[in-house]
């Protein structure tokens, strides 16, 4: 149809590519011929990546020990038995002995792991007051309602830090001892407990309330510790940079885990003679067993792990890449067969 340019009516629409829906477009046609190279390329790339990931993950060492204390699993069972029944379980100590036949390549991270612990359940997850934790004095005195029933103590004092998360703070503690020579003395391995929390958490999100007369204790005056706590928050650590709300363990704990089985970083081993890793020899971890988990079927584990560029040990990603890559190759082959069979037909059709 021809349209004379001169006789253009008042209502004649604009003849542009957009209004006439003639925008230039790439029109991919999904068929075997297109999918074929796509599948092969993706497959090969994924397999390559997967192999790399798999080997780098395999290079990571992990050493873990379940110290929950189920009967017959070690000397923590005494503590485990002891904690049954009594409301604040009595302090108890146990130990884990292990030996390393060779150097445990550093840097070594010490994690504790809890299983069957639903830090991600809704009512638990919201039970905190971030403003209080950021050191806001008003929030310190008036925790938000979400913290209930750990908002106010029985005496009516505001709880600091309030909420269920803080109340359930993990309070086992560990110390690592190294016996260089058989029968020799155990030397305490320095655990670097600083910098285990996110930098931003420690420096931005969590702040102590302003000191009163230079004393943190006075700042917290008029508040109550959470019911499960034995010490007030300002006595979590003697180190003024690691006490109160900016206690690293506390900060780490407050970052609630995604899944019911989770690890949390306890310490890094990178100081002194251990900067290269844990040398061979016998080791003992002294455990202060406080945290009751057996009641709800949880487990407590201790984990030594080295890390690589991709973080901790994670065999899954490599395997997943390999599997997906293989699947791509496989579908690629199917496509190839289809392509060969139907390509002929198409040619016939065209003739």
């Amino acid at each position, binding site marked *: 149809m021809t349209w004379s340019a001169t006789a253009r009516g008042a209502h004649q*629409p604009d003849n542009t590519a957009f*209004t006439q829906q003639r925008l230039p477009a790439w029109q991919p*046609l999904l068929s075997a011929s297109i999918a074929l190279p796509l599948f092969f390329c993706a497959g090969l790339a994924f397999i390559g990546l997967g192999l790399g990931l798999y080997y780098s993950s395999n290079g990571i060492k992990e050493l873990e020990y379940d110290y929950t204390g189920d009967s017959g699993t070690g000397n923590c069972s005494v503590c485990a038995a002891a904690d049954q029944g009594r409301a604040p379980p009595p302090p108890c100590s146990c130990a884990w002995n292990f030996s390393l036949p060779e150097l445990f390549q550093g840097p070594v991270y010490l994690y504790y792991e809890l299983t069957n612990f639903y830090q991600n359940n809704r009512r638990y997850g919201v039970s*905190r007051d971030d403003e209080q934790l950021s050191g806001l004095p008003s929030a310190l005195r008036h925790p938000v309602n979400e913290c*209930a029933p750990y908002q106010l103590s029985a005496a009516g004092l505001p709880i600091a830090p309030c909420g269920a998360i803080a109340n359930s703070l993990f309070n086992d503690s560990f110390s690592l001892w190294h016996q260089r020579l058989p029968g020799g003395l155990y030397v305490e391995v320095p655990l670097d407990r600083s910098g285990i929390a996110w930098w931003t958490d420690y420096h931005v999100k969590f702040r102590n309330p302003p000191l009163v007369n230079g004393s943190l204790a006075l700042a917290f005056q008029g508040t109550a510790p959470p019911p499960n706590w034995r010490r007030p928050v300002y006595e979590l650590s003697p180190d003024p940079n690691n006490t109160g709300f900016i206690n690293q363990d506390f900060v780490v704990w407050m970052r609630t885990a995604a899944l019911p089985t989770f690890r949390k970083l306890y310490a890094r081993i990178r100081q002194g003679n251990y900067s290269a890793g844990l040398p061979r020899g016998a080791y003992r971890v002294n455990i202060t067993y406080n945290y009751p988990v057996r009641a709800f079927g949880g487990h407590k584990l201790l984990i030594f792990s080295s890390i690589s560029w991709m973080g901790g040990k*994670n065999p899954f990603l490599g395997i*997943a890449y390999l599997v997906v890559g293989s699947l791509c190759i496989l579908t690629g082959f199917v496509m190839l067969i289809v392509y060969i069979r139907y390509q002929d037909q198409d040619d016939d059709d065209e003739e």
Partner: protein
Amino acid sequence: MEREPAGTEEPGPPGRRRRREGRTRTVRSNLLPPPGAEDPAAGAAKGERRRRRGCPQHLADNRLKTTKYTLLSFLPKNLFEQFHRPANVYFVFIALLNFVPAVNAFQPGLALAPVLFILAITAFRDLWEDYSRHRSDHKINHLGCLVFSREEKKYVNRFWKEIHVGDFVRLRCNEIFPADILLLSSSDPDGLCHIETANLDGETNLKRRQVVRGFSELVSEFNPLTFTSVIECEKPNNDLSRFRGCIIHDNGKKAGLYKENLLLRGCTLRNTDAVVGIVIYAGHETKALLNNSGPRYKRSKLERQMNCDVLWCVLLLVCMSLFSAVGHGLWIWRYQEKKSLFYVPTSDGSSLSPVTAAVYSFLTMIIVLQVLIPISLYVSIEIVKACQVYFINQDVQLYDEETDSQLQCRALNITEDLGQIQYIFSDKTGTLTENKMVFRRCTVSGVEYSHDANAQRLARYQEADSEEEEVVPRGGSVSQRGSIGSHQSVRVVHRTQSTKSHRRTGSRAEAKRASMLSKHTAFSSPMEKDITPDPKLLEKVSECDKSLAVARHQEHPLAHLSPELSDVFDFFIALTICNTVVVTCPDQPRTKVRVRFELKSPVKTIEDFLRRFTPSCLTSGCSSIGSLAANKSNHKSGSSFLSTPSSDGMLLRLESLGQPTSAITSNSYSSQADDWASELAQEQEPDHELRYEAESPDEAALVYAARAYNCVLVERLHDQVSVELPHLGRLTFDLLHTLGFDSIRKRMSVVIRHPLTNEINVYTKGADSVVMDLLQPCSSVDARGRHQKKIRSKTQNYLNLYAAEGLRTLCIAKRVLSKEEYACWLQSHLEAESSPENSEELLFQSAIRLETNLHLLGATGIEDRLQDGVPETISKLRQAGLQIWVLTGDKQETAVNIAYACKLLDHDEEVITLNATSQEACAALLDQCLRYVQSRGLQRAPEKTKGKCRSVLCCRSTPLQKSMVVKLVRSKLKAMTLAIGDGANDVSMIQEGMQAVMASDFAVPKFRYLERLLILHGHWCYSRLANMVLYFFYKNTMFVGLLFWFQFFCGFSASAMIDQWYLIFFNLLFSSLPPLVTGVLDRDVPANVLQTNPQLYKSGQNMEEYRPRTFWFNMADATFQSLVCFSIPYLAYYDSNVDLFTWGTPIVTIALLTFLLHLGIETKTWTWLNWITCGFSVLLFFTVALIYNASCATCYPPSNPYWTMQALLGDPVFYLTCLMTPVAALLPRLFFRSLQGSVLPTQLQLARQLARKSPRRHRTPKETSAQGCLPKDSGTEHSVGRTVSVPLSQPSWHTQQPACSPEASGEPSTVDMSMALREHTLLERLSAPAPSLPTFSLLNWISSWSLVSRLGSVLQFARTEQLADGQTGRGLAVQPHSGRSGLQGPDHRLLIGASSRRSQ
């Protein structure tokens, strides 16, 4: 009472009268002092209120207010309206649920954000619409209009909004009526005015309106101050075709008011200098506004399906929440007593019972999973539809240059229905055809004149059209061609010159210009005007002319002619005057010759008759008539007319004697010159060319045809018609009556006094079926009678031939009345006229009494040319699997032949005709017939019925029957239907209950645009929207799936690993734009391939894109994808120290990437917009995430994702997961799609492949058929002539075609009720040959009815016959149109009582 009153009755006769009495309105002049005690009826209260302003009455003023809101009421009212949407209520409910602390999932304020956003968008749109309405209202309200002022005693300019009921309004030519006005005075001497109703019904022909009886006789100028009458009329109603009332004068006399007296708001005054009227209905009580229901919101099929699936989603949501709730209850039960450190008691420290916890969890889950119900879906769909409407409106290929009109979508939300149409119901005249009638052939006195030269001329028009670019005249070749096969010798050359000039004007641009010039002139195209006469007939006419000119002074001039020549003469006189054509001279300024006829002829016409002021070239003649008429009036006073017929006749004869001389001197018509000279004179002086304006194009065609034979209609006054003949000069016929056309009588008549014989003649023109029955019974005894009988049978044969060629046939007949007969008839006619109550019925009877014992003169065949590209369009549409039903009022043969011509029927298809007799309500029988055919044709496979019936032709159907057929198919076959028509008579078909065509859903300039609209836009709209809807369901299910899987790992506590911000804004911000762009712009198959392969349209009809199966497949894929997208991050981060939101954010990222890639798989065309929006979405997500995660450390409890994104961006695992997961999730879909594309490609995919392989091969096909070859003989000629038509200037002929949705029901239209009763109806049903079953069934159903039959007995009769049909019809096989009768089983061809019964 023998028949229902025509034209204005509502379907239910009972109650009408009651209504009229009980519900009337009384209108008085506002200029009068308030009616005090003398008017008890008005009531005291009303009287008080009237005193405020002059005498404003208790009725609405003319202010137009279509706005819904005021500044104050906007917010509450709009919110109230928005909350009528269940979806909005749902979302607000969910958002409000967040304010309950026990169950809240998000920050309450935040949860409100999306729903507020959606509400705000909708509110803003409503506000904008309302504002535009306000602006247009304001504009309309402030239009000026002359209103008579009581204070100033003259007409003053007022705004429209200031007009009140009872005001006197004066309007000038081309002004628009501001309100419904009762016409009281017109500048036209006969009290007529012409209006154009295009604004109301799209019809551009002029309609006549008449001054209220009693006012037209006023001697002086109408003075509103003297108007003291009281008008009683109906309450405002929306019936455009009905107005009843009466005007009560001071002296107590009553006069009836009819719709001919009412000027409707919105119409335009044409061809009349000025009118004065009193406002009857104003403002929102006007009929136009009562009809204007505003934009309508139909719900499309797709949307209904979608709503059903939304309900599935709701069910799914409830199920998921229930599952979760039970799970949470169990979890609580398991852990709460065990001093679990993570178990949080209620705020008062007590422990929560598992059941309560489960209930809370249920509610919280509903909040968390609300995303499943796509909040953005409705908004997105509206946006997509708006864009689709925009694109359809903007399509330059749907723009008609000739009329400068583009396709309009009036219904904004059913565009995708266009892609799913199964049945098209089409009107024929004006929809398939151009509604430009072209005179083709005629038969006079049993002799056929084939007009071969004319046919060739028409063929050349087509050529000229096809060579439209070649404006260079090729006169030589044309004249050569013109002489080929022509009997003409010298004249041909001359003719070719004129055709050449028209050939040039026949080109598109010229035609357009011409149409611009003659904007206000209906039905005049060069094709119509310019007719090459048949030489033999022309000779006969001029012979008559000459011999009459010689014999005119003798006693019986006509007696000197042979019977045949006398018939020829009468035939042309009848063609010329038996109509309501108005003569205008287009280039003369509309100066009115103010010749007042002091006294009207006492003879009133039934219909108002037209009167046109005289072209100035004939002014002298006119004034002489005026003076004569003035003289005449002395003789005629009151009903004394009867006593003085002879003197009148003398005068008339005197007049016609004097006329020629004046005519000769005043213009170039010369009785001495031969006919070519006068032709030349006309062509040389185009300024003096007369133009005819007709109510119907048939009339114009006939008048132009007569003009070609030098029988020129030069003037029409209300009581006189003047005809110019070359030798006889001007003959002025005294027009005694015009019995207008109506669709029940199917004929019109004029009663005239013949100036030559002084006899009173009745000329009747009408449908052959009717007229042939009204002929004078001729005795076979005498020779004359036998001859007459022979003529009749010959004529009938020719009529059949014409019909077979698809011509519209008309019979012309004459009756000579003796004085006594006339007097007798006139007596009763006047009685009928004066009876106010049943005048219409009585007039009808009166007309029937007159139109009997006719003498057959001849018959004409008029071609209603098919529009450009109609056959191609129809064949395309048929290929597309659409079933086309043509519903027409034409007779069977004509309709069938047109159907062949436009490829509705193929010659190799079997046609089965099924006729039956029916009773008054045709619906019942139609129903029966339809079911009957279905059961007969497809006893074994009722499912296949639909597919087998290819096209159906319903002949002789009235508008109401049309609508009933549509309704029937819709309700019985549950099919998607589209009704298409061009005028008011199709409205009821298009939509029941609505009279105004304004209510149509789409308006297309020409039929052929339907192809592009349906096959291209319809398909695209459907495919786009279907895919978008599916995508939205997928997207939301997949997203919700992620959350749901997480519940298994968080104790079903309704916790979410996805930050609430992402959760809430994900649908709205991050993932909304790309699907929108795809939904608006995606072209699944390129335009050219769609148009060359119409069968692709079937994908929409079969709902291939969006079926329940597709939906569930889609949902399954979504579930799978969500499982993958959840489990890979889960396993990747398992047993690590990842925290909740650091783990959730990669999942969101993965989901976003998966969505986009999924969309990528589903998107067929990638324009730069797709790329940009996809990139933008990803970018937006990361930007928002980074800003959000850096903005505040403690502001967004409980998640507080401070620095999460930043930390993630430094984590290689994040990238690794985000790279692999989408690939893994989409692998099956990609695999499936690719495999299907190669192994089992759908039609659409094949078409895409085709387009890709040969992108240049598929151009839009340009129809070039039937251009080169000239017709060899007359048999093939007309069909060639029909396949290609000349595009000439056409008045904007809108075609309305709403897709009727089943819920659109309502009162049957009252508009066309009068025509809907007991008419001949024929329903033919055809189906295409199916491979296995014997071909096809056609139902041809005739209900013939006599107009004056007795209801009861016939009803009885019809029933019995119907019964018989069912039992015996099987045996009566007929093979109407095809020779392949032997192949057909009797089951498939049925004649159900082919009786045509006329009891007269």
